[in-house]
């Protein structure tokens, strides 16, 4: 246990160091500075602009920025949708998979465009190499770059820049891919492949087992995909088992390395934010709130999983830890990872918007599973999805400033910019949309008879079944992609509703946030004084955590009380419906 906790701690330290340097590097990338990669990559960048007709210096208003962003999403959506539908007519399909059905193609494409990577399919039985590599990996980069660009646009709006514009979406996205995502994923891919993650273009292998039967072993060019899957907070693994599959995540080291990759850019963006607004402490205060939530959540999840299932204890099963057994709740977990690493992974994958899994969240204890769910429901702000975590946390920061900032006796201001009706309206709207879609879609799903048609719907009865539905919409709206996999989702109903939830969750969410950036951009900055609310102090981090929990999480309390909380108390009272 101690060794694993040291492993967890070392991971966090590595993230802190990595985020610090990467954050500074990103400042240079997005403010037009020169980095050590420029001699090599700058010609590529310029060449790309020339080919595609992008004017590098062309500043976009928030509306133009939004339109550019949406245009890229729509075009790439169509491209991927067609690749999936027509994969049987396209090359790189050695296993001769047929075209993907329309509802599943809609769900999957939306899922990858929105950085959700919700997977209602079994990758190795559905997707050709071309679909995986071009159709899906394209979005692993593009959706991550979009997230970074949006965060940078909001930072620009909040910074003291005098311009009313937010930058140029095409340039931001290009730079995010070229200078950040590609170099990092190349390095990460080599690390992963060196540890045994598979990288091959061969057809699936056939093995002869000791019993004399044959077994098909799926392989593929997955080392490179694995890197961007975690780094880009995508989470859509080539294998159905995702990071629980030994070809994706062979050992304890790769497990923690994948956690590192998931957390790296979200935390680095906090540093970028601090530096771009001219006060690193502002970034640290935001980061502090993220760390506080994340560490406590990880702790609760690790504790819940290590203690194990009280129902099993009640019937005399020994779940305590021994020198040979990891103990705790091992259902749905790999022995390579045990409860500590698995819970750590779960908190990281839901604290960010990654959604990859190294164990079955569905099999977690109710409390462990609830931690994962709550981390998503609060808008994934600890530290949140790539870009999305920062911009959503900044929305909460604006609300926190507005609610409590009045208590210092000034009309609220954040980073010297007055928070007025317009900003409050847009920030509230972002939170409201999140709640509306998650709870609204869950309500539709629990009531609609179509939900259980064609074998769809939750496999478990009672509170746990409800948790599976609630988790699925939380995850899709939050663009997470992880699941309580006890839900049969590959039906027309779930594919359609889920795809819609993901689309709304991403782009309806982003429009008020970009409008917010537009409202703040160029706003006069009031110099800070002794009477100004110090948003760069630990006290503000505490306030921010409070607002996230009370405004963000408490809204879900009634729903959670009928899901994981009820299940927990039933389990404790040994009343579980079987």
């Amino acid at each position, binding site marked *: 246990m101690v060794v694993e906790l040291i492993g967890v701690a070392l991971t966090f330290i590595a993230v802190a160091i990595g985020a610090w340097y990467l954050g500074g590097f990103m400042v240079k990338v997005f403010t037009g500075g020169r980095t050590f990669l420029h001699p090599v990559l700058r010609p590529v960048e310029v060449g790309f602009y020339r080919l595609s007709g992008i004017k590098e210096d062309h500043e976009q208003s928030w509306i133009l920025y939004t339109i550019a962003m949406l245009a890229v999403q729509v075009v790439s959506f169509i491209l991927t949708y067609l690749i999936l539908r027509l994969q049987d007519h396209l090359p790189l399909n050695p296993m001769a998979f047929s075209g993907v059905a329309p509802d599943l193609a809609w769900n999957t494409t939306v899922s990858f465009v929105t950085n959700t990577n919700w997977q209602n399919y079994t990758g190795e039985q559905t997707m050709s190499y071309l679909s995986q590599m071009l159709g899906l990996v394209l979005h692993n980069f593009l959706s991550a770059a979009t997230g970074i660009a949006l965060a940078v646009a909001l930072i620009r709006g909040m910074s003291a820049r005098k311009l009313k514009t937010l930058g140029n979406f095409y340039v931001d996205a290009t730079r995010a891919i070229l200078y950040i995502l590609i170099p990092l994923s190349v390095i990460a891919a080599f690390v992963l492949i060196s540890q045994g993650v598979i990288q091959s273009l061969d057809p699936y292998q056939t093995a002869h087992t000791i019993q004399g039967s044959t077994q098909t072993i799926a392989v593929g060019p997955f080392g490179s995909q694995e890197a961007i899957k975690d780094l880009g907070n995508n989470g859509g693994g080539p294998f159905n088992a995702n990071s629980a599959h030994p070809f994706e995540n062979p050992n304890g080291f790769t497990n923690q390395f994948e956690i590192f990759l998931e957390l790296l850019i979200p935390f680095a963006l906090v540093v970028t934010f601090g530096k771009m607004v001219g006060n690193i402490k502002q970034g640290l205060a935001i980061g502090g709130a993220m760390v506080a939530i994340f560490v406590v959540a990880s702790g609760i999840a690790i504790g819940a999983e290590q203690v194990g299932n009280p129902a099993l204890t009640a019937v005399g099963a020994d779940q305590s830890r021994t020198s040979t057994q990891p103990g705790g709740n091992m259902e749905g977990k790999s022995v390579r990872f045990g409860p500590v690493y698995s819970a750590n992974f779960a908190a990281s994958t839901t604290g960010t918007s990654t959604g990859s899994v190294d164990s079955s969240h569905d099999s977690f204890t109710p409390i462990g599973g609830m931690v994962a769910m709550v981390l998503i429901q609060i808008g994934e702000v600890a530290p949140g999805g790539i870009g999305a975590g920062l911009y959503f946390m900044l929305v909460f920061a604006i609300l926190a400033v507005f609610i*409590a900032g009045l*208590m210092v006796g*000034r009309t609220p201001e954040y980073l010297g910019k007055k928070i007025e009706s317009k900003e409050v309206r847009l920030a509230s709207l972002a939170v409201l949309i999140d709640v509306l879609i998650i709870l609204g879609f869950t309500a539709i799903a629990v009531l609609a008879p179509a939900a259980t048609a064609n074998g769809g719907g939750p496999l478990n009865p009672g509170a746990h079944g409800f948790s599976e539905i609630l988790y699925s919409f939380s995850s899709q709206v939050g663009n997470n992609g992880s699941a309580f996999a006890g839900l049969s989702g590959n039906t027309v109903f779930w594919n359609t509703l889920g795809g819609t939830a993901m689309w709304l969750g991403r782009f309806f969410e982003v429009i008020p946030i970009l409008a917010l950036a537009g409202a703040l951009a160029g706003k006069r900055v009031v110099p800070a*004084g002794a009477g100004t609310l110090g948003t760069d102090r630990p006290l503000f981090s505490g306030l921010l955590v409070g607002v996230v929990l009370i405004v963000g999480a408490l809204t879900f309390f*009634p729903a959670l009380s009928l899901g994981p909380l009820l299940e927990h108390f039933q389990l404790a009272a040994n009343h579980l419906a079987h």
Partner: protein
Amino acid sequence: MEEKTRSESYRRRRRSSLLDRDIMVPALIESLTKLDPRWQARNPVMFVVEVGSVITTIIFIAGLFRGASDSLFVGQITLWLWFTLVFANFAEALAEGRGKAQAAALRRARTDTTARRLVGGREERVPSSQLRKGDTVVVEAGDLIPSDGTVIEGIASVDESAITGESAPVIREAGGDRSAVTGGTKVLSDRIVMEVTANPGETFLDRMIHLVESASRRKTPNEIALNILLAALTIIFMIAVVTLQPFAIYAGTSVTITVLIALLVCLIPTTIGALLSAIGIAGIDRLLQRNVIALSGRAVEAAGDVDTLLLDKTGTITFGNRQATEFVPAPGITMDRLVKTAELASLADETPEGRSIVSLARRFGADGHQQAGMAFIPFSANTRMSGVDVDGRSIRKGAVDAISTWCGCPTPKQLPEAVQERVEAIARSGGTPLMVAENNIVMGTIHLKDIVKPGINERFAQLRKMGLRTVMITGDNRLTAATIAREAGVDDFLAEAIPERKLELIRKEQADGRMVAMTGDGTNDAPALAQADVAVAMQSGTQAAKEAGNLIDLDSDPTKLIEIVEAGKQMLITRGALTTFSIANDVAKYFAIIPAMFFVALPELGALNVMRLTNPSSAVLSAVIFNALIIVALIPLALRGVRYRPIGAAALLRRNLLLWGVGGIIAPFIGIKLIDIIITAVHLA
């Protein structure tokens, strides 16, 4: 000092009259008439409560006909929901009541009088309501001034107590900055001719009545933003509550509409929603109690945001006149001789400077008196000196160059070196040197100095802690200004200020993103007042100044600016505190209602009943009652305002977060539990 005591006693008088039955009774009646949905629709939070109340009322009545078993419970919930609305209305009506009482008092001062209008040199008697801008009117002792105007002829003492509450008469005279007179005030002595400057219905009194009465109508920017947040939170909680029913159905149970409405009302921010408008009105009213009229609520709110205070040196920072602080004898002259000579020279000098020389000399033991045979030479702008001729002694005191010329030295350079040095040192230190001479022989120098008001230093230190920068404005030269600025502890100063430079300074501060507050009374202050974010015009000032300001100080006390800033901050803090409190309250309410909702179908959720409330009905009822009563409990605070402490933003936030945030989480746990104990004891649930 004396002035302060007077305005304080006046303030008390007004305050005490505010909680009497004249305000309470109409407020109670109004809290019922305000249940009109058209009125409630202005406030999204309370409107939701009203809709909920109507629904539960219908359920209750329908239940009575059907003989439903839960009628006692539904009836009580319904009653308390209506109470919630009535309490909110009461808070608002109470806040408005204070303003209405004030308006009524003002209206009494606006009685129609007969004015003596001058037409072509002839007087004609017309009702004051027929006076138009530009008319010329004669007012004599004992007459009420018929309208606002400017004195164009004569001087008179005027009783302005009808407006300022200040009983001491003030002087109004033609020309200069004391020429403005206000309709409704009374001339006590002499006769003036004034030009009317306002049409009927536009006079200062009319505007004041209108302002006081309509204080509640127009929302300030921050209030609008807060309303948006409250509306958004209301929608968010509606989503949470509405979707709970399908979830409950999925769990194999269902929740009654009454309980869902109870949960919704408890979760939406009713505390701040109910008190928000009262806080705003009370903020304006608090200024009114300090004798400041806010021409808009926006100005009060802006006062809390002020970053830079422009303060006139004279009257605000210093006593407004130079005083003698030191005698320096010339070489060969004894101190005693200088003191006595200086005293003699000043005996008949009635200027503050002259009197200060006499009083300083007395402290040195001089005891001269005016006697027959003394020929006093008055000060003239030409000679720039004054003095006395007595017993063949010719004594003069005055400006350095004037005296040196009189002594036969064409320039001060030819004075004794020691005297020269002294004169320069005094000037360097920001003081004014005066010289005394007798029979062409220089006796020595008197050091005249601006005296900084005692305690002003601490005041500025306090302002600095509040995050405000103070800039002193003075017509003095840089040297003098710098000395006073250092002594008073202001952050910056503007010397040799002329109106244009003042305006320039304000523009510059604003361009840097700062909000500027200033006071002014003269016509030449008007452009700067119009440019400043918070502009306090003195009631004693000119019409132009009053029109340019957005606040008017009836006491004409320039230090009032500091209180105005505090009042603005107090209003914002009160809003923030109650918003935070209101939202923090939700935690306990969830723990009261959620387990109660599912107690029958899902008994395991009883584990969430951490308060150990007696039964589901008592739990829901207790939460609803707490939610209603907390509004009443906080009305005094909303009207009085949360105290502002100048301890710096960080300490203030920590303190208020602890009090209203953490306190807001804990208080309802205790409150709901207590109410549960009581209603269980009296068998209401």
